[in-house]
Structures are given as C-alpha cells and as structure tokens.
C-alpha cells in the first residue's frame, strides 16, 4: 500500500467509543489540535451492549467526568428515556444515578458535539500501524495508506482488537455488532513487545417491542423527580419511558441444561476470561443451579426503534436455542428476536504496562484507554478516556504536567490505580467496594472534589468555575451558620420534633447538632432556623450530608492523611530493584514490572509486603544521603 502524508496533529485518538470520545474532546478543549480516527464514523459513541449509563460507582464516574469538564454527562442528559436515583434508602455515599439511554440519539448528540469542536477532526479510517522512532510514538498509518503524525497518540480500540464473535458453534472474526475488527493493530502491538491477554464479554438478544406481552411483566418507571448527571444541565426530560421486569422459568433452565454441550462457554470454544460481573445466563444457571428464577429486565433501546434489550439474558448459545429461551419467559412467549445475543473475544493489554497517566511504559507518548486496558463498561472507558486525553494533550502542548487522581479524589483514581498497580485477570468493573474511601467519593460532591482540577487543566470555563466557587462558599457559610445558631426548645420546635418521632428538647441546641439526629432533615431545620438567603436544593443537600456524617467523613479523612506521607514519598525513576538486597524475590519481580511512582502505590501491589516497603524506604533514603555526600 502506498502511503501519503495526511496531516499533523498534537494528539491523535484511535477509536471513537466512550473512551475515545472523552479523550478527543478533552484534548481538543485543552487547545490541542486533535484528530479522532475510527473504523466507522456511524459508530461514534455506540453502545454495543446495554442501553444505559450510570449505576452504583459507575454513575459517580459520570459525575466525575462532568466535574472535570468531560462530555458523557451532558450527552446522556439530553438523550435519556428514563432516569432513576438508586440506593435512595441508603447513605449518601452509595446513591447513584442511572439513565436508560436512547442509544441512537446518544450517538447523534455525541457526534454533533464532537463535530462542533473547533480543534477536533473526525476521520474515518482503520489504523493498522504506529510510527515508532527511538521508542517514541510519532503517528499512525491507516489501511488506506494515510500517515497522520502527532506528538501523542491515544489508543481506544474497545473490543475491536482481533475481535471474534461466537454464537453457539459459530465463530467468526468481527468487532462488536458485526463491525470490522482490527487485526493488524493487535499484531503490531504484539510486535512492539506488549503483553496481550484474551478477554471475553457478551450481550443478550434484542426483541421487537410490538411482540412483547407487557401485561405479564412488572413496570419499572423512572423517577418523578427531575434528575441530571451534569452540574450544568438545567432542562430535564419529562417524557420518560418505562422498563419492564420478568423472570426466567424452570423451562428456561431446562433448555439451557439440555443445550449446554452447544454452549461455547462450556464446550471449550471460548478461552477468553469473562467478567463475573455480567455472567451469561448459562453461566448463572450452571453456577447457581438451585436458584429457581433469574430476573430479566426489558429495556427499550430508544424512542424511534422497536428493539428491546433483554437484560439478564446475555448468552452465546446457538441462535436456534436463543429463540427457545425467549419463548420460555413470561411476556416473551411470542416475542420476535431481532438480533441474537453473542459472545465476543478480544485482545486487551495487561494494564500493569501503563503508568498512572495511562501512558505505556514501553513506548513514550503512546497512551491507551478503555476496554483495551482490560475494563468493561462505558463509564469505566470514559473515565480512562478523559484522563488519557488530558495527559496526552498536556504532553503534546508542552505543559508536561501529569494529572493523576488519587484513590481519595475519585472513583476514576481508584479505577486507574487498580489497573496499573494490580492489573486484572478478568474484564474489570468498578464496584463501590473497590473504593476504600467510599464516603468521600459521593455522587453529590463530585464537583467539590474535581472542579478545581478541571479548571486548572482548562476544561472548566472561568464562568463555570466562578459559579462553583460561589456554591462552595454558600455551603461553607451555611454550615458555619448552623453550627453557631441555637434552636430554642419552644413549642414550635417541640411540635416539629415530635411530628418526626424525635425526643423532646430539654435545652437549646445548636442547629447542626439537631440536624445530626437521624430523624431530622435540612428541611426541618430550615423551618426552625431559616437562612437569610435562598439556597438551592443542591446546596441544602450538601449541607445536610456534611453535617450529618461529619464524624464519619472526618474519620475517613484521617485515614487518607495517614497514607499521605507514603503518597508523597516518590520512588526515583532510576531505581535499580536488583541492587536492593533484602527484598523478597516476589516483591522484586512485581516492583520491576509495575514500577510504582510512590511508596503508597508500591504498598498496594499484591505480593509486596510491609517488610519490603520498609526496605525500599530505607534504600531510597540511603540513596538520598549517598547523593548528598557525593556532591
């Protein structure tokens, strides 16, 4: 193939899925001349699996992306068909938004936003090779011979790398949803010395809504209360569509049992490691054989389509068996299957080959983000995408200021630290239990945690930042006020307390202390000690949470502080682990592989125990002294 020079950029993003979109958008908004190159421009921000965004932990990631100045939250706010706040009955730390997306509108809206970014070019093309000179990535070459050069490159290939779709006994080379797979790039990465692993994921069949008997299912409506992901969204969609709940039956399970030999999962045809987080229906039936039924959610894929996603029925059984499975489920007896479910195997790189900036250790100026790094989920991909985009742009623009979020800053920080420090043996999904500082990483305070960083990077406008500072000030003032003002035990007070089932006041009490009582809400306090200025709901909520859980929040901050010194202890880049006597062999090998940046990161590597950390610390200090005395 004859090649030609097709253009020079600051940043090139390969791929336009959820990671690619955020990476490209962030880079362009930071002022980098950016190109996004994707195999098929009709697939920008495509949702190959479930038509939903958010959920526990994931929903908070979407908020974090928004607080940093990313795009996902804004797009879903414009295109959802249903929005729900989950875990409302629990504490503030685990509340999370989830939206059902109109997946077609989502794509259109995202593409529109990207196309309107002055610094961003969308290009259709299949990247097959990287240009590497002196261990640095300098550009990409497409199948059609176009050479695009750039200072930094971000690869976000999702499940396209040597993708293979498997349905029953059938297996063929393909990207998701029968898209062209990316074969050459995978081989090229292997040649460059990257360690690749084979992962697997899957998707359920889609059925025609017109053929569903909804009377046999339970309705799952969205929240009445208006909700949005983005801190900037003002208009919410009121016309929501419901989802529906049904269950598998004994017949479903019998069909699976008698066709297990045809399942590629059990016949040995699939070798890739699948996620425990979204197992196939055959997996669920085999592993939990005693369970009489499994939930099946029917989720519309959009407003202008009849396709309905059958959540819970992810499968790679033969198409013929899938027809039977559907027919065994109440409400779906006569459902027409429009697309069959399938499993897909793909290449991912072992993420311990990355720095916490998502730059690869082996090739300078090359970054990877999303499913290629071994994760699953749109939100996980987008969270990595924005960070890779920020760091790639920062490098390309000569700012050379790496942006790494701590585990106490964001779920995105937890996600990336887990990936680059511990690696993963299955597609990685964020769970709230992965975050040790869950109480700090809340849905409600994502802006308080990250707007500052977003502004500093240049992704948050001065105007938005000013608004944010104003909100922050109001929160602080109101908390201060409530901690000072004393509520007297008069009749109005006692009546209100009694009405919510609280015990009578004996003396005057500070408003903040009264608010700490479990039965009290900010709305009650507001009646007893009204604020002089009008505060929005968001501020009131923030005040309530910060006061009510102050003790626990404080305790968590103490934990963070205790680790701070270890986070601050940098490990010199030129450290020679072989020269440190006393390290256990396993620890030495792991340290050499992960190359942690800080002592805290080193301590999180499995197989590196406290004694090794002690020795490492002493070695580092020793080096400092040696250096000083040499000078």
């Amino acid at each position, binding site marked *: 193939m004859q090649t030609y020079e097709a253009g020079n950029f600051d940043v090139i993003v390969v791929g336009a899925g959820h990671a690619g979109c955020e990476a490209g958008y962030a880079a362009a908004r930071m002022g980098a001349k950016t190109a996004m190159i994707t195999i098929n421009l009709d697939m920008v921000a495509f949702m190959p699996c479930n038509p939903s965004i958010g959920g526990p932990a994931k929903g908070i990631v979407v908020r974090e992306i928004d607080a940093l100045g990313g795009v996902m939250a804004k797009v879903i706010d414009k295109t959802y068909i249903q929005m729900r706040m989950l875990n409302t009955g629990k504490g503030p730390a685990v509340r999370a938004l989830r939206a059902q997306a109109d997946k077609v509108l989502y794509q259109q809206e995202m593409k529109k936003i990207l196309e309107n970014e002055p610094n961003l070019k969308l290009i259709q093309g299949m990247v097959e090779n990287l240009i590497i000179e002196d261990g640095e990535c300098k550009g990409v070459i497409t199948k059609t011979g176009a050479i695009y050069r750039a200072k930094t490159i971000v690869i976000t290939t999702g499940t396209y790398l040597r993708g293979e779709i498997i349905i029953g006994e059938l297996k063929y080379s393909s990207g998701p949803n029968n898209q062209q797979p990316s074969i050459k790039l995978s081989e090229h990465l292997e040649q460059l010395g990257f360690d690749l692993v084979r992962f697997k994921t899957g998707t359920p069949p889609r059925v025609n809504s017109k053929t569903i008997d909804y009377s046999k299912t339970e309705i799952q409506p969205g929240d009445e209360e208006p909700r949005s992901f983005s801190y900037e969204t003002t208009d919410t969609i009121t016309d929501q569509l419901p989802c529906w709940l049904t269950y598998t039956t004994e017949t479903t399970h019998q069909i699976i049992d008698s066709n297990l030999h045809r399942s590629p999962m059990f016949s040995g045809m699939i070798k890739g490691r699948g996620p425990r987080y979204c197992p196939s229906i055959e997996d669920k039936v085999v592993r939990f054989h005693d369970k009489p039924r499994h939930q099946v959610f029917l989720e519309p894929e959009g407003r202008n389509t009849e396709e309905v996603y059958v959540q819970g029925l992810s499968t790679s059984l033969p198409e013929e068996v899938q027809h039977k499975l559907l027919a065994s489920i109440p409400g779906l007896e006569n459902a027409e299957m429009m697309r069959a479910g399938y499993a897909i195997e793909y290449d991912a790189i072992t993420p311990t080959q990355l720095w916490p900036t998502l730059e690869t250790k082996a090739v300078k100026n090359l970054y990877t983000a999303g499913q290629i790094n071994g994760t699953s989920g749109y939100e996980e991909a987008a969270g990595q995408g924005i960070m890779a985009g920020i760091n790639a742009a920062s490098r390309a623009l000569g700012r050379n200021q790496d942006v790494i979020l701590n585990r106490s800053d964001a779920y995105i920080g937890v996600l990336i630290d887990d990936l680059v420090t511990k690696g993963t043996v299955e597609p990685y999904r964020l769970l709230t239990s992965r975050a040790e500082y869950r109480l700090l990483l809340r849905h409600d305070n994502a802006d308080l945690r990250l707007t500052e960083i977003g502004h500093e990077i240049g992704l948050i406008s001065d105007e938005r930042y000013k608004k944010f500072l104003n909100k922050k000030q109001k929160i602080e003032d109101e908390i201060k006020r409530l901690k000072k003002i004393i509520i007297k035990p008069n009749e109005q007070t006692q009546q209100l307390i009694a009405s919510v089932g609280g015990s009578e006041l004996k003396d005057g009490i500070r408003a903040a202390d009264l608010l700490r009582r479990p039965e009290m809400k900010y709305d009650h306090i507001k009646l007893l000690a009204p604020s002089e200025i009008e505060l929005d709901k968001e501020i009131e909520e923030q005040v309530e949470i910060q006061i009510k859980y102050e003790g626990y929040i404080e305790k968590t901050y103490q934990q963070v502080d205790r680790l701070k010194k270890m986070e601050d*202890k940098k490990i010199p880049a030129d450290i020679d682990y072989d020269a440190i006597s006393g390290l256990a062999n396993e620890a030495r090998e792991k340290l050499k592989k992960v190359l942690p940046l800080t002592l805290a990161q080193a301590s999180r590597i499995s197989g590196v125990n406290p004694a090794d950390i002690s020795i490492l610390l002493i*070695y580092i200090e020793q080096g400092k002294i040696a250096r000083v005395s040499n000078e």
Partner: protein
Amino acid sequence: MEFDTIAAISTPLGEGAIGIVRITGPDAIKIADDIFQSPSGKTLMEVNSHTIHYGFIIDKRENKKIEEVMVSIMKGPKTFTREDVVEINCHGGLLSVNRVLQLVLTKGARIAEPGEFTKRAFVNGRIDLSQAEAVMDLIRAKTDRAMNVALGQMEGRLSKKIRKLRQEILEVLAQVEVNIDYPEYDDVEEMTHTLLQEKAKYVKNEIEKLLETSKQGKILREGLATVIIGRPNVGKSSLLNSFVHENKAIVTDIPGTTRDVIEEYVNVRGVPLRLVDTAGIRETEDIVERIGVERSRKVLKEADLILFVVNYNEEITEEDRKLFETIKGMDAIIIINKLDLPQKLDIEEIKKLAEGRTIIYASMKDDKGMDELEQAISSMYFKGEIETSDLTYVSNARHIALLNNAMQMIDEALFGVESGVPIDIVQIDMTKSWETLGEITGDSVHDELINQLFSQFCLGK
C-alpha cells in the same frame, strides 16, 4: 504502615524497677494525653517540648488508675526519631508496664517492630548511612521469625477461630455490598439495622470471649500467679530453688500495698510462672505463719496455680487437710516430696483429698520429679497443642491490641446502628474490624470481599 505512630517497651523486660513505654509518630502526644491524667489538670497537648510531667495513666473504659507515672514530652525534630516522642516512665515492673503499653495500643498506636525506632530515626535523617544495612538485616530477620510464629500459630485455635469469625463478618459485608452494587437484585435479604446489630453483637461477643478466655494469652502476658504451699520443712524452698536454677528467674517487686511481697518469674516450658510470695518461703518457709491466715487466703484466692507440697516421710496432719479444704476446686498440683525417705504418708488419702488433680512423686534432694512436674504444668495450660516457644511476647501483645482494636470498631458500628446511621456507613467500621482481624491471621486482602460477593450471589445483567 510507614509513618504511623508506634510504641514499645524500651526497657529490657522484667529487669529493673522502672519500665519505659516509648511512643513515636504523629499521634504520640495525642495518644499519651488520651490516657494521662495530671493532678493539676493540665493536658499534655499544651505542655512545652522536652518537659516531664507527673500523673496517672487511666483506663477510661473502666475508669481505673493503672499506674503512677512520669511522662516526658519531646516534640520533633529534636528527638531521637525526629518525630514527636513520648516516654512514659512506669514504676510498676513488667505487669503494669504491659498494661500501659496495651492501653497505648488500643488508642491507635501500633506495636513497633524490632529496630523500628532506629529505622524511623534513619528514615528521618537522624542516623548515618552505615547503620542502614544493619536495620535492613534486622527487618528481614524479623520477618522470617514472624513467619515462623505465624506458621506455628496457623494451627492454633486462635487463628482458626479468627478465620471463622472473619468469614462470618465477610458474609455480612458481602450482603451489604450486594445491596449497594446491585440494588435491583431481588434474591438477597436486605441487610437491615436489626440484622446488622445482631451480627455485630455476635462478633463482639466472640472477640470478647477470645480476649477473656484466651488463657494462654493471659498467661503469656502476666505470668501465671503461682503459690507454693505446704507445711514447714516439706521442701517448698527446694522446689522454688530448682525452678529458679533450671529456669532463668526474673525478679521484680510490686509496689503499693504488697511491696513486701516478692515475686519471681520463671519460665517453665514456655509457661511463665509468677511465683508469688517467694520471699515468704525464703524467710520463714511458711506463708500462713508469716502473713497471717487472712492474707494467705487472699493470696491463695488470686492464684492461678497452686503447688501443694506434702511430705512422703510424714503422716497427714490436720493442717494438710485444712489446706486441702482451702484450695478446693482450684487448679493445683500435689507434689509428694522426699521420696528418698521411708513412706509414712497415706497415699490413698492424699489421692482422695487431691480430687483427681495431678500428683507428682518427687525427691527434690535427688532432683527427681522436676521433669514430670514441668510436663504437668505445661500440659495443663497448653494441652500440648501449641509450641509455646513460637509465641513471642511481641506477637502476643500485638494480637491482643488488634483484638481490642477490632472490638472497638465493632462498638463503633453498634453505636452507629443505634444512632440510625445508614448501613453502608456503619459498614465502614465493620469492614475495618474485619481487616484488623485479618492482620492477626495475615490475610487482609481486599479482593476477598469482591470474590465473596460473586461466589455468594448470582449477579449481573
């Protein structure tokens, strides 16, 4: 963890009348202040650096004065470690120094590893380069030794129990997590406050039992209060002397009301015996005569083990029978001494009086019977299950501190439940408790929870 607050007894164990508990790290002064009460009411947080203060160490939970102390406050960087350092000077000998240390550990300090104070000093730039290697060797050597202890204890009942307890907490945690991460998953019982409270109370109870009934732990911590009794001239002091000769004795004196009572520590096959009132035996050979009936009753009542010596060469007297009456139901070993002389003792009656307790036939003069006696003591307290040489003092104090910490966290979880704090926040304390228990068995791995989640429940889209 590096850079946290650590504490240790910095004087040699058991020797000398003064013991020093030394604390270093960011919370050193706060921790000391938390357990210190000055007669003048001053707090250690406010005093000047490099000053010394008189007062008491108080166990606030039991509202009890533990020890009369002098506390030195030294603020970094002008200290050995360049961190804040507190030294608590105790007068009380091994027992009370230990109690002060335990209290410090429950307030958030961690027990220092061997060489760790020196390491701190080095890391903070206080010591020169040549010492670094030595410290590293020490850390490595210590780890190997700790591994041996850990392996030895793996078979022990303690770790088995803790594993079981952790698994139970883990199932609770997984249930809470599944409610959070899969809110629509219908197949799992919602973890309610009542349910959580029930579980937390159960766990607390189990930890309490471990702390209380862990006889071995108590023995190792304080020594087994042992009293040698018997009529004059039956061979009590010979028995004492053979203990002391065969085992290195550590002599301390206990202050206060019983200052005249001298104790000696001996280590019998890993069982530390605190021989009470040895002075009495030395001086008059007769505890009852010397300190009076009331006192001797009191000493006997507080004893963990009684070594009752009778004479093979004499007939049973009324006094013997009275002594048998006094020690009814107590842990005792009967030693029939002077086997080298002709029998006058009615062995059958002794057997009856002994009520099934071990009888050892001995001749102190010929050094006969000591082996059997030591074996009897050892098997009485360790039932032959634990190789006691592995249970070093350090790991033991550490375990107790960790158990105490784990219990504190459970208490906080219970407090949270009672105050109506949401489950997922209460769970923070439950999780910490679980992690703390894991430090005892050495399996505090975070992925355990996620693994449990997905093996216990059928989750996913």
